[in-house]
């Protein structure tokens, strides 16, 4: 057993992710301007602001309620491609989490994996399509492997965040095969995928929170 994660830590994670996408808003939109339609920053900032507003009015006491509420709020406030995708990610996390007040590493890993499966179910992305999948998939693989080696959760999350950022950077040379960027064909190469950048922030903020909170 390599540590437990209280519900507050998960809420703190969402808070931190909200802060990050808000501060990185212009950067995310810049990336989306090059190969998309210049709204990813606005979409993520709007969505996470709605999420935190929701949580202020009603903070769920179990992980499943928490993530379902986050997912539903994203689905109903973001729109575009990232709304259904991040929304489904959290909805699926909620469905697997169960009515628990705290996670252990395995439970968190399972929930994240379910979330990623939800993104794939919704968007049919495969490795190398130049999407958020290319940041999340290697991150969760690294997380699973680290936990399997008995690495403490916080450290495992660090490894996962590093993998997400590596995955994000690896999208640069790729020619997009999913989403708007695919309309550009060859012209999509040479730019980072905006969604992989926001996903890298998602994993990095998780690592930062866990390093602080996990007992």
């Amino acid at each position, binding site marked *: 057993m390599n540590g437990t994660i209280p519900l507050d830590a998960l809420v703190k994670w969402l808070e931190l992710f909200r802060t990050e996408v808000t501060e990185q808003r212009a950067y995310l939109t810049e990336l989306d301007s090059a190969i998309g*339609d210049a709204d990813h920053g606005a979409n993520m900032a709007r969505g996470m602001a709605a999420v935190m507003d929701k949580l202020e009015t009603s903070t769920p006491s179990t992980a499943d309620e928490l993530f379902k509420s986050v997912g539903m709020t994203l689905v109903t406030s*973001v729109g*575009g491609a990232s709304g259904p995708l991040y929304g489904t990610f959290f909805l699926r996390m909620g469905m697997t989490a169960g009515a628990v007040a705290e996670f252990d590493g395995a439970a968190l890993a399972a929930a994240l994996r379910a979330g990623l499966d939800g993104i794939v179910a919704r968007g049919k992305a495969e490795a190398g399509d130049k999407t958020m999948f290319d940041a999340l998939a290697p991150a969760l693989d690294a997380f699973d492997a680290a936990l399997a080696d008995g690495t403490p959760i916080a450290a495992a999350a660090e490894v996962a965040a590093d993998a997400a950022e590596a995955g994000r950077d690896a999208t640069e040379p790729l020619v997009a095969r999913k989403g708007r960027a695919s309309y550009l064909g060859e012209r999509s190469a040479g730019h980072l995928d905006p969604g992989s950048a926001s996903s890298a922030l998602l994993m990095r903020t998780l690592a930062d929170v866990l390093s602080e909170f996990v007992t």
Partner: protein
Amino acid sequence: MKKLINDPEAVLADALAGIAAAHSDLRVDFTNRIVYRAIPKADGKVALISGGGSGHEPLHGGFVGTGMLDAACAGEVFTSPTPDQMQEATKVADRGAGVLHIVKNYTGDVMNFEMAGELAASESGVEVATIVTNDDVAVQDSTWTAGRRGVGVTVLLEKIVGAAAEEGRDLKAVLALAEKINGSGRSMGMALTSCTVPAAGKPTFDLPDDMMEIGVGIHGEPGRHRVPLAGAREIAAQLVEPILADLDFTSGPSIVMLNGMGGSPLIELYLMYGEVAKLLEKAGVKVARTLVGNYITSLDMAGCSVTVLNADDEILKLWDAPVVTGGLRWGA
């Protein structure tokens, strides 16, 4: 950024307020950002719902009215609306004969409408059929892309299928017609300038004074190729040729739209249509109906697109049927 707006975050809400003030025959649900007909169509008729990101006006709110749409869901600028909006519109607009969702083929739009369909079916039990338009020949329709974008044909489809629904055809027939129209039309667009998304505050891309983008969509995204700026005659050729290469339009009459991207004045759009008409005639395309103007736009982008649709007597009859909307109006 120079725009006639207040707060960039409030553009959609403020614009909806203007639409409500300008059109007494429309009803706007500000909470859900849905534009409805003030007087719904008769019970037992299929309802047509469309929606998408804002910034394409008059599409879609400007096409709500007798003979065309029953409701339009407005998303943020260039961001598809959310499933709850579509579900609400579906419940409210349904007259007991089912609802056709008209979706432009963009990953976001498709996924949000999918989720809406799932919700609507499960919760409200309304019968929903969906047409996804994908007429943009600038994009290869392959596993290497998200598929062709839905552009100009969406406008013609909303008019023609809207007339069929007004006639009282059932959902199956309305969907079949929608599929026929979508399969019979092709579009191609170009840009002289980028556009500026209010929330972004600056042009989405830089385009030198001596260059233009060929094969753009309607979201200010760069096109397939950046080529040297050319005259209207040459531009017309670069738009018309890929359309005619993709589908045969010589077998019957056709409906042609020369659409402005939002920042190009009408005198230029008419000039462009003159060039397009010459090319179509040379190619043996018989133009039976024409639209020239701003119908599916990309904010303040300067540029235009060409849409050609294979028609027949039935389609022309439906095209000529009365329509009363902000963006298209005739026969009543």
